[in-house]
């Protein structure tokens, strides 16, 4: 498999805080890569660096063969790298359909309004929001808004989708539905890079996992390797038997 995203020695400093320090990893095509770590470990900052919200102080990022280091988010989307936000950002006074149409209009294919509307319709069906298409985005529940985030990103027809805690705050049923959705996204040929605190979900979904702590990469490997890593247990999981427990549930 070829590498879709390559991150090489990336660092980002905010004043006295080194938020991300010399982090390197790669995502292959058709792979789900999980990103875990304690609060404040720099996970969302790393996302922001990858999709261009922040420019890294050092390091390089290559996506599908292009150097995208420091490229603006709106350019990165056009290349096929879309994302969702941990704190949802719906376009509140626009309809659900219009929200997703924006994603299709200004995404990788830069569709015209009419074609974008059709894509938006399809995507809404896929994420289960078709019935709410005409409602204003602000009227959705949190679970609905998280789906909307995913729908907007999908409408951009990405090659790589960055999901920032799409499961946080959802009920167990909603979590299960979202996990199914993420699997169908993977099956459709899109790679996924996801931050998640819901351990069972990330263990089940990820092909590989990267662990961040204090801005540094602590470990990388398959879910079982990572959950059994003593450093990861000490810094994040806190329970020696967690690997076995999590695997049992799967």
């Amino acid at each position, binding site marked *: 498999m070829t590498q879709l995203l390559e991150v090489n020695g990336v660092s980002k400093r905010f004043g006295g805080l080194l938020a991300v320090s010399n982090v390197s990893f790669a995502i292959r095509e058709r792979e789900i890569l999980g990103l875990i770590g304690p609060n404040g470990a720099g996970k969302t900052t790393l996302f922001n660096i990858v999709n261009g919200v922040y420019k890294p102080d050092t390091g390089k990022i290559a996506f599908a063969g292009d150097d995208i280091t420091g490229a603006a988010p709106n350019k990165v*989307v056009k290349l096929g790298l879309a994302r969702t936000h941990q704190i949802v950002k719906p376009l509140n006074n*626009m309809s659900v359909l219009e929200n997703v*149409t924006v994603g299709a209009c200004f995404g990788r294919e830069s569709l015209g309004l009419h074609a974008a509307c059709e894509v938006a319709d399809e995507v809404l069906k896929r994420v289960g929001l078709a019935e709410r298409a005409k409602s204003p985005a602000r009227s959705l529940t949190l679970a609905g808004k998280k789906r909307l985030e995913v729908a907007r990103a999908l409408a*951009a027809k990405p090659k790589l989708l960055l999901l920032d805690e799409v499961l946080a705050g959802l009920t167990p049923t909603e979590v299960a539905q979202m996990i199914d959705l993420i699997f169908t996204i993977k099956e459709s040929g899109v790679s996924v890079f996801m931050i998640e605190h819901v351990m069972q979900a990330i263990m089940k979904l990820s092909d590989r996992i990267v662990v961040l702590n204090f801005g540094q990469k602590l470990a990388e490997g398959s879910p079982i390797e990572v959950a059994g890593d003593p450093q990861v247990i000490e810094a994040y999981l806190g329970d020696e038997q967690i690997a076995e427990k999590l695997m049992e549930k799967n």
Partner: protein
Amino acid sequence: MIFRRPTFWLILLLAAVFIYLPVRAGDAALREDLILVAIAIILVSNLNLMIGYTGYVNFGHIVFYGLGGYVGLYLVTARGWRLQWAALAAGVVVSLFALLFGMGILRLRGAYFALATVGILVAVSAFVSNFNPFGRSDGLYLSFDAYQPLGGAMRALWVTYYLIVGVMALSLILSLAIKRSKFGLALFAIREDEDAAVVLGINATMYKAIVYSVSAFLPAVAGALMFYKNAMIDPSIAFEYMLSIEGIVMLMLGGQGTVIGAALGATLYERLRSYLLTSPKLSNFHLVIAGAMLLLVVLFASGGLIGWLYKFVPRSREVIE
């Protein structure tokens, strides 16, 4: 298609009424009243592109109108241009000016952008007051000969009136066309959440600079026509600060972000203002009314009259945009 939209036909109907009423009565006084309403509609509906569509408050929108007037009158008086070319040139020059400034100040957001627009208004007004080709603080005057190409002063007044009504219709059609376009979708997304819009692939800086420039074009053309009709311009009437504020009141009153709301707010406010200005006891009282009205709208009906209509008759959204 835009022709299928009821609002498009509503706009044409409005323009037809503007032409028909004074012509039928041959009434020059009515024409003068309506010309003020038409100018207000032009200013407000273009201001709406910034405030209502993009969410950026421009306190200096009147700059485009005044500068357009100056450029137009200068080309007619000093260069001997025909009115139509002078007016078009005024639109182009002022749009380019706006594009240049827009690329600079549209990096700012919220209150800082609003402040910068006040700065532009003050700076342009001060510059023009000291600019020799524009007659410094005396302004520019048009000789009667300049009306000859249009068949004399009397006919010229009517011709400029028709042209201004045309610009009014174009302004509203432009608003409608933008609202139903991909460009408009980008503007609305920026209004709702600029950071999210950028992450969704919208080059916000570029779109904002373009809409700022577009919102300058027709007001500048209208300024050139209007000050040609008035045969004079000076800094105090070209850059009337209060008119910039009142434009915002009109927009909020009618309903920001809607095409018809801009026209409605401009019409109602302008008529009320004329009434108050001409009534001997209430002269200048209109600013008190304007202030109170803005407060009431902002506090109790942030969607303005059209927003209020949408609330009670949701289906009206399809007809009145």
